[in-house]
């Protein structure tokens, strides 16, 4: 490594220059952006963490209705809060590998129907008790109960039998699933004493920080849990999450130095932020995507020519530029991108093609009545503007698209999964199987495109138990192509997770699994005085 690059790396790792600046300058030294990112991650990790201080995050996505019950977590603040006081069996690293947490070893039988998780010895809950295999089984059992209303119900449904012995937990599955460890990293599945059956919202877990004040919708404060087993987590003595849902107020708090990091930067103001001193924008390509969904079983979308016409009539690059302010990537009408393991990058990118779109549209013999697209900004930020861009590009192809604005209030109950053509958002899942099984399997509750294809289902289930990586990748490629060419999903863009931090925060690295370093930024970062 050249001397300049080495110096640059050290400077960047200390937070003295921003990631973006580093990538730019490294580029001048002949290093590719991807390479520079990887180098910086290594350098950031190699830097010696500083201990102590109070690390504060200002976050949107918290409501006064939030609960500490991990089963109910559905927005950004509870997600982050729960990962501070709690811990999961395993975690997924920024490179998509399984990282052992409470489980220290994982093994399966040949057809992936039986999994054994060896539980780490001597891990302590905040109440002083030791984490036992029984606690793990009780936790998983609680989430299988419909009454718990767990967001992880779909995940644990696939487990037929759970048992524990002195030092491990064995899960027998309904059908083979090579991805089970990834599913156990789900943020709802926080291991609680006796599964949290007695007090699901007690906030007692095995995480690096103990809950001090829990004021939903206002703030959450924590102090370091001295007995946490993992010394690479939890550098600050105290951490705080302040709920700041207003975009401008959140920005002002960062600029005034009242918080050290904030989530959800509005793409509209990124240009302004770049010039601000003392802080940097941290953007990472994630798996979340903004979509328009058509019901494949309702006219006129029951005709694949109509679906193809609409897929060809959307200008994806324009949307990434205008709706995401460039912080995102174009979609290709299937819900998988390079952030997933076993992504097939050889599938050709679908482009805006008004001529071909018109050909398909004319083939349908549609009577020319307007095709109604229902949208609300609650579907995703900028959904209405995106729909307007779509309308223009579709009109240019002779397709009469009409926008019907819906109220944000009640959008997810009255429009999504009900209206035949509407805007929606998906947060993405850690692995391909989970994404497809959640929304594209014929029998899935959330099959919001009403896509039913027996061949697709069969391949998806076969891929689940396939332990041969090459074969599995080919199967996923087949699924992607089927969905891209016959599905009801129009996927114009994948959005980046965009956060910002002050320069005194050390240890930040890009993690595509979720925003704010997959919810662990407060535990993994430290304060350089």
């Amino acid at each position, binding site marked *: 490594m050249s001397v300049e690059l080495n110096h640059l790396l050290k400077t960047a790792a200390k937070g003295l220059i921003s990631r973006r600046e580093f990538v730019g300058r490294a580029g001048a030294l002949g290093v590719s952006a991807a390479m520079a990112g990887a180098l910086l991650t290594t350098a950031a990790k190699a830097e010696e963490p500083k201990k102590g201080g109070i690390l504060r995050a200002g976050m949107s996505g918290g409501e006064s*209705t939030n*609960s500490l019950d991990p089963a109910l977590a559905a927005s950004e603040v509870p997600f982050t809060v729960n990962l501070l006081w709690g811990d999961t069996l395993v975690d997924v690293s920024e490179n998509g590998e399984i990282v052992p947490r409470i489980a220290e070893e994982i093994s399966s039988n040949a057809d992936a129907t039986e999994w054994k998780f060896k539980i780490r010895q001597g891990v302590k809950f905040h109440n002083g008790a030791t984490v036992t295999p029984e606690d793990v089984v009780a936790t998983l059992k609680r989430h299988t109960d419909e009454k718990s*209303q767990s967001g992880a119900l779909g995940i644990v449904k696939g487990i037929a039998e759970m048992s524990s012995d002195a030092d491990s937990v064995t899960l027998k599955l309904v059908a083979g699933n090579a991805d089970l460890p990834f599913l156990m990293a789900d943020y709802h599945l926080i291991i609680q004493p006796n599964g949290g059956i007695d007090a699901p*919202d007690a906030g007692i877990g095995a995480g690096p920080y103990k809950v001090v004040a829990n004021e939903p919708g206002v703030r959450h404060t924590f102090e370091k849990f001295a007995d946490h087993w993992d010394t690479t987590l939890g550098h600050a003595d105290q951490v705080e999450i*302040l709920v700041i849902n207003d975009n401008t*107020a959140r920005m*002002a708090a960062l*600029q005034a130095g009242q918080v050290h990091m904030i989530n959800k930067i509005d793409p509209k103001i990124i240009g302004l932020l770049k010039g601000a001193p003392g802080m940097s924008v941290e953007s990472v390509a994630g798996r979340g995507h903004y979509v328009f969904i058509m019901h494949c079983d309702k006219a006129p979308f029951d005709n694949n020519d109509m679906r193809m016409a609409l897929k060809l009539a959307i200008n994806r690059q324009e949307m990434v530029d205008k709706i995401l302010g460039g912080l995102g990537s174009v979609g290709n009408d299937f819900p998988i991108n390079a952030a997933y393991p076993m992504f097939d990058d050889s599938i050709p990118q679908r482009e805006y093609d008004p001529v071909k779109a018109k050909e398909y549209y004319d083939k349908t013999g549609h009577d020319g009545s307007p095709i109604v697209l229902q949208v609300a900004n609650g579907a995703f930020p900028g959904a209405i503007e995106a729909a307007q861009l779509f309308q223009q590009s579709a009109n240019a192809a002779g397709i009469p698209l009409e926008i019907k604005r819906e109220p944000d*209030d*009640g959008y997810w109950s009255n429009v999504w999964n009900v209206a035949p053509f509407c805007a929606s958002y998906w947060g993405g899942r850690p692995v391909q199987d989970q994404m497809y099984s959640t929304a594209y399997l014929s029998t899935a509750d959330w099959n919001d495109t009403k896509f039913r294809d027996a061949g697709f289902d069969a391949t998806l289930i076969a891929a689940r138990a396939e332990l041969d990586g090459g074969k599995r990748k080919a199967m996923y490629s087949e699924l992607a192509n089927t969905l891209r060419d016959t599905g009801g999903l129009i996927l114009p863009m994948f959005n980046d997770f965009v956060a910002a931090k002050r320069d005194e925060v050390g240890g930040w690295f890009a993690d595509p699994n979720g925003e704010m370093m997959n919810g662990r930024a407060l535990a993994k970062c430290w304060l350089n005085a």
Partner: protein
Amino acid sequence: MHPVVKLVTQRLALGLILLIAVSALIFFGVAALPGDAAQAMLGQSATPESLANLREKMGLNEPILWRYGHWLLGFATGDLGVSLSNGQDIAKSVGQRLGNTIFLAFWAAVIAVPLAITLGLIAARYNGRWPDKLISGVTLATISLPEFVAGYIVMYVLAVKFHLFPSMSMVFPGMGIFERLNAIILPVIVLVMVVLAHMMRMTRAAILNVMESAYIETAELKGLSPINVIWKHAFPNAIAPVVNVVMLNLAYLVVGVVVVEVVFVYPGMGQFLVDHVTKRDMPVVQACGMIFAAVYIGLNILADVVSILANPRLRHPK
């Protein structure tokens, strides 16, 4: 019975009837919103089974009149029930938020009311001259600015540029009084800006109205100083309209400051109500609605009573 006591009792009884009418409006209004609490809570993650489970648990399958009666009875006995969305006791969580809102409203009022009345008196004293024009101009400018714009400007200048005060007004239990006051400086400034003009203009108008009277002329002819005339002779007779507008503004400070609360991340009732409306958390929404209605009705009754007491004709009827 003394007529004043009778009048006050009448007002109170009317207020109570009004409150019950409001309660019916709130309850059935909330129930008529599209989608129910179970659906709103589960949002995108709703499945038919989880919906049915949740509805059962929340008692949403009971007849609506039964639910209304049950709720009103509970409210009368101080039992506000538990929040549907996070299971917390409503009386406790609302109580804390209401305390915060009143704290902010109190300090805004402590500054705004005397300031507005004083400025009104000065403006009346120098009617049509430059102090009047300056005061009117400035206060009209601040009231014309939307609250959130005023909030962002104040925040940008005083917090982001000059780091004088915190940009966020987060307060929490266990905070000392001076810390709290320091935290709420910016929203107090904005609220004072918003409510000042209305009260000031009303004071000025009421006093100018009284100044037309013959007895003011007499006082002036006696040789009293202009400020003395206004303070001792005109102001007592202008109290009724001033009190009315002051009470309206106080009510606004309690129930109408949601935008300011959001901008300054102040944990008051406004943000609390909005969160629970989005989650269709009906018991909390209804409780907040009732509290707001009670504050409005209560302050208006108070204004009426003060006007009555300030008016000798009502105090000593023939």
